[in-house]
């Protein structure tokens, strides 16, 4: 039980059989283990590794930047070492500082997590020189797989299915165009050192090809310090499915099934599941075997992931191998019962793999939603920053796992990845896992930063997703005009309206609950009914509310909704029964004047409620003029201006780039919405801007 305690809960299967989270985690009784491990990372992954270490009785050392001095991972660890100022280039990426921390604390091994130095061969080599174990594959394997050209050669030799492409580095934009024409459009231009969607672009014609090369190589240079680019055939409408492998130093290897990671935006994963509804046992075995073949071919000796692109005919092509612990590893852990971090530590220590392929089951279904601090209404997610003024993970729900490294009061800063949490749900079937995810997302309280729960909540109930009919193009296809928020059905609209009306009535009653105002006798009789007009989604609904036996009866048209009075303005999450059926809503903001912002089915709806007579008068109120955004270019998120390419008086054409904004290591090209002349340029290159700042104004 000890091992699950750290998540505060256990796993239930449909038969209500109590299971520990790592029910299938194997090791040899009494085998030696590291005594102290340093985690060269931050945030949720550092916390994740620390949890396993704690479970195994291994002492942990955290490293942290000055900005992370109060971070959860720092406080969870037994020891902590500050390794520099906030920017990653001065802290988490500075090898010397981390090596010094290793030396000073006497750690015997270093777990690099993902990102940062996790796939840095120099780091692995430097540790080896110090006699400290790097928890990950040997540096030769990292090197071979980290280089996309080299990895292709090896994979090809190992008889792994390949995508047509150019076998070598692209020299310049023109060379890129030439190669693209040889391979045939569409093509994918990507950095050899890339990963996580950075330094990667798709081109459909020569013009796009040049732009893609320019932007991607710049991004690669700033993100990885390596601007070498690759080009390959781009497979349209593919799925992204990957195989988790686990190997030891003795030449053994097993595959831990697949993960379906097709739901992506800008080539970054948003939602993952294991297993994939598309993969059958035969295909799984074929993919798994090829993945292990490749791993063995490079002498792989830790946990790793082989990524494949899969077309609609179930053909799969090798994409790349990630030589680290993957972000989405928890879903594999949930369906196999294996603690992958533990197994990495074991192979790092030199132990033989404790699993034969037959020991690895597909047990149930797991889903992972990546909850990010970002605005899903802008390009499916533009990073946002802020302080988590209220933060409650839905851990009270059975079969929910939250891998996070933050808590109420934490700051989401511009320096690091904007991920808030990996929300994982588990079920005996996909449907069960999905249903749990719906409740979990609705119960997840996050205030202070904009987050992507509206989008996640919409995806998991969208019919093609529920049917398992997905590709990496899913978001663009499902939301061709960008994500607009939950589209309410007629019934949902009425239920939400009824809930909001009940909230109004409750607020009116509380407003009259004075306890010590008796000098001038108060009018004490409480109102028992209201005639209201509710404004939601640009529609006005007239209704009546009556209080009756601890219920609010809301009459809309002919229909009467009975809303239970479990309304509280003090708890962020309300579970309110409408006609006996439970509804999870969150009152995210009370704006005064009976205007609320209510989160319902993931999306926050602004709702204004008025007495019918007040509403009549409200019709006289003038519309407020809002800023015409077609004549300005606004910063879509906080960041630093990489370049400003126009000056006052310039004529610009619709869609022309006027500035490049770098935020969270991503370069964003900002364009004008219509043709015109530049009236004002408010910022210059290098300036730090806030979300919503007006960068350029048109005449």
């Amino acid at each position, binding site marked *: 039980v000890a091992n699950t305690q750290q998540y505060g809960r256990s796993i239930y299967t449909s038969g209500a059989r109590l299971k520990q989270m790592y029910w299938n985690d194997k090791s040899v009784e009494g085998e030696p283990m590291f005594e102290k491990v340093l985690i060269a990372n931050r945030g949720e992954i550092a916390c994740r590794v620390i949890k396993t270490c704690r479970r195994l009785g291994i002492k942990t050392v955290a490293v942290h930047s000055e900005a992370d001095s109060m971070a959860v991972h720092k406080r969870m660890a037994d020891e902590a070492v500050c390794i520099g100022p906030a920017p990653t280039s001065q802290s988490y990426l500075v090898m010397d500082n981390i090596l010094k921390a290793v030396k000073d604390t006497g750690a015997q091994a270093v777990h690099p997590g993902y990102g940062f130095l996790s796939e840095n061969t120099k780091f692995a080599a430097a540790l080896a020189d110090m006699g400290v174990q790097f928890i990950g594959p040997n540096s030769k394997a990292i090197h071979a797989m980290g280089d996309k050209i080299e990895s292709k050669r090896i994979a090809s030799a190992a008889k792994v299915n390949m995508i047509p492409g150019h076998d070598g580095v692209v020299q310049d934009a023109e060379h890129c165009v030439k190669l693209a024409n040889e391979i045939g459009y569409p093509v994918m231009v990507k950095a050899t050192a890339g990963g996580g969607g950075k330094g990667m672009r798709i081109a459909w014609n020569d013009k796009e090809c040049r732009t893609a090369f320019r932007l991607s190589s710049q991004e690669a240079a700033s993100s990885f310090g390596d601007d070498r680019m690759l080009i390959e055939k781009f497979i349209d409408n593919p799925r992204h499915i990957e195989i988790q492998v686990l190997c030891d130093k003795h030449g053994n290897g097993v595959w831990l099934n697949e993960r379906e990671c097709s739901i992506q935006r800008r080539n970054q994963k948003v939602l993952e599941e294991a297993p994939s509804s598309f993969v059958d046992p035969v295909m799984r075995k074929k993919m798994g075997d090829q993945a292990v073949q490749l791993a063995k071919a490079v002498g792989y000796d830790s946990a790793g992931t082989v990524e494949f692109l899969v077309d609609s005919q179930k053909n799969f092509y090798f994409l790349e191998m990630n030589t680290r612990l993957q972000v989405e590893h928890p879903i594999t852990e949930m369906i196999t019962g294996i603690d992958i971090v533990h197994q990495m530590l074991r192979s790092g220590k030199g132990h033989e793999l404790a699993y034969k392929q037959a020991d690895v089951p597909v047990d149930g279904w797991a889903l992972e939603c990546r909850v990010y601090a970002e605005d899903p209404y802008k390009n499916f997610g533009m990073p946002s920053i802020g302080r988590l003024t209220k*933060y409650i993970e839905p851990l009270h729900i059975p079969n929910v796992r939250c891998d996070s490294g933050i808590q109420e*009061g934490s700051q989401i800063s511009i320096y690091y990845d904007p991920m808030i949490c990996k929300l994982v749900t588990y079920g005996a079937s996909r449907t069960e896992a999905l249903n749990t995810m719906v409740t979990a997302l609705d119960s997840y309280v996050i205030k202070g930063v904009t987050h992507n729960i509206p989008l996640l909540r919409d995806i998991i109930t969208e019919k093609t997703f529920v049917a398992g009919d997905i590709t990496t193009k899913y978001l663009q296809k499902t939301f061709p005009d960008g994500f607009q928020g939950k589209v309410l059905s007629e019934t949902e609209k009425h239920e939400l309206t009824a809930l909001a009306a009940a909230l109004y009535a409750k607020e009116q009653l509380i*407003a009259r609950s004075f306890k010590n105002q008796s*000098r*001038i006798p108060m009018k004490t009789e409480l109102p028992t009914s209201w005639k209201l007009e509710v404004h939601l989604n640009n529609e006005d609904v007239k209704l009546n509310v009556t209080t009756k036996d601890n219920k609010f009866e809301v009459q809309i048209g002919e229909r009467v909704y009975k809303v239970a009075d479990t309304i509280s303005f003090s708890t962020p999450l309300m579970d309110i029964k409408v006609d006996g059926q439970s509804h999870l809503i969150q009152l995210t903001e009370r704006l*005064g004047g009976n205007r609320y912002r209510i989160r319902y089915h993931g999306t926050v709806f602004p709702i204004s409620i008025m007495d019918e007579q007040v509403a009549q008068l409200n019709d*006289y109120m003038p519309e407020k003029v809002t800023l015409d955004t077609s004549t300005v270019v606004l910063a879509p998120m906080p960041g630093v201006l990489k370049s400003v390419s126009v000056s006052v008086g310039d004529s610009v054409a619709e869609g022309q780039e006027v500035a490049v904004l770098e935020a969270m290591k991503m370069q964003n090209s900002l364009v004008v919405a219509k043709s015109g002349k530049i009236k004002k340029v408010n910022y210059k290159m290098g300036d730090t801007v806030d979300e919503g700042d007006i960068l350029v104004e048109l005449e």
Partner: protein
Amino acid sequence: MAAARIARNVLSRSNVFSLQNIVNKHARCCSVVAGSTQHALSVKRRIDKAREASLLGGGQKRIEKQHQKGKLTARERVNLMLDPGSFVEYDAFLEHDCTDFNMQKEKYPGDSVVTGRGTINGRMCFVFSQDFTVFGGSLSGAHAKKICKIMDQAMLVGAPVIGLNDSGGARIQEGVESLAGYADIFQRNVNASGVIPQISLIMGPCAGGAVYSPALTDWTFMVKDTSYLFITGPDVVKSVTNEDVTQEQLGGAKTHTSVSGVAHRAFDNDVDALLQLREFFDFLPLSNQDPAPIRDCYDPWDRMVPGLDTVVPLESTAAYDIIDVIQGVADDSQFFEIMPSYAKNIVTGFARMNGRTVGMVGNQPKVAAGCLDINASVKGARFVRFCDAFNIPLVTFVDVPGFLPGTNQEYGGIIRHGAKLLFAYAEATVPKITVITRKAYGGAYDVMSSKHLRGDTNYAWPTAEVAVMGAKGAVSIIFRGGKDQAKNEAEYIEKFANPFPAAVRGFVDDIIEPRTTRKQICQDLDVLASKRLENPWKKHANMPL
């Protein structure tokens, strides 16, 4: 016809004078002797007619014009602000008595203001609402008399007065009579000050001498885009100083809430303003004889606020938002901020703690490091004095690096103005609870509700630093010309950049975990509810104005 219909609409909506009632009573009178019946009937008709006229104000055309401007009529406003059916009107028949310039031919029952009383969420208040449709809402002797009457009544029973201002100014035809009217109101405003809360909501023009009535009341709110306050309008400004300025720039809501500090808050439109005024009213006691209101509270009084443990950044110069702290501890995270756009380096406003109204004051490290300057001192002082006058406990969050230095401030009289805040806190006898979240430096430490100014409970968070000044400045004086200033600075920080120097002297009562702040404050407020403290008798203090 249309006019009569509207009047009936207004009548039936107000629920007080239902036409039906009048007609019924009228029917019952029929058995009386013929002659006097005739007379009674004609009186009845006259009453009905006058009342109908009074309900219509300046007439249908002008009502429509008012609506076109995006404004409501005087009666619509009153009905919207008060609980439905609670409005009791005074002086609906009162008319002006001016005969100059043929004014006797133009009379409106009730003249250019609607007055009366009613309830807001069950509690009594008196109200006047200037009617722009009658003579542009101009102030006649009659108009003033009506306002004075309800003010006198309000004083008599101890209930607040709310004024809804929408007036072109003095009734020029009446001359000095009108000026006398203003002065009568001013005198009552002053007499009522500190006895009953007085609230002004500017919902249209308010110019000339008229502006001083709102200025004398406790609270001045405005409606964005449709309300203006100025001594003289743009035309006069142009002719006197040759300045080109629009009404909005000169005296619009934005100007007065962010530049001049004349208004305490602005709302989007008439409806929004009146609805939010109702919510604001709920925070206030009815008079200085009443305790701060307590309402049902569902937010646990001892709720922990874990987010506060990390709200103060480790770097002592880094900014954070004090509103996060205030909302963190307040009931349901609700905070009604006063003057949110003016002197943002200090935050003031109302919240509830375990159901009880409290006044919250906090230095805002996010703006100008939270220092006290002239505007912040005056803003804070006025807020503190209101709370003290009306028995509202004060909760103060301190993170202040000191008073803002410089010629600008000195020439502007920071000494005089800073003294106002000091005076206000020192004079206040309501429960005073203080939490030092970080810096409490120099004289500003003393000012911000310190123990020495009769603070009832004073807490320090572990991040608190109480000292005469920051390390750099201090070291350059203590170790003048010293060699190893870095070492000296470190020594100073070690000694003073923590809550101990204050705690060992009893200047703070305890060092508390930030997460427990709500619990501590709620507990203390309960204990301090029976606090009795009086200042020595005096005619009045001589505050440094």
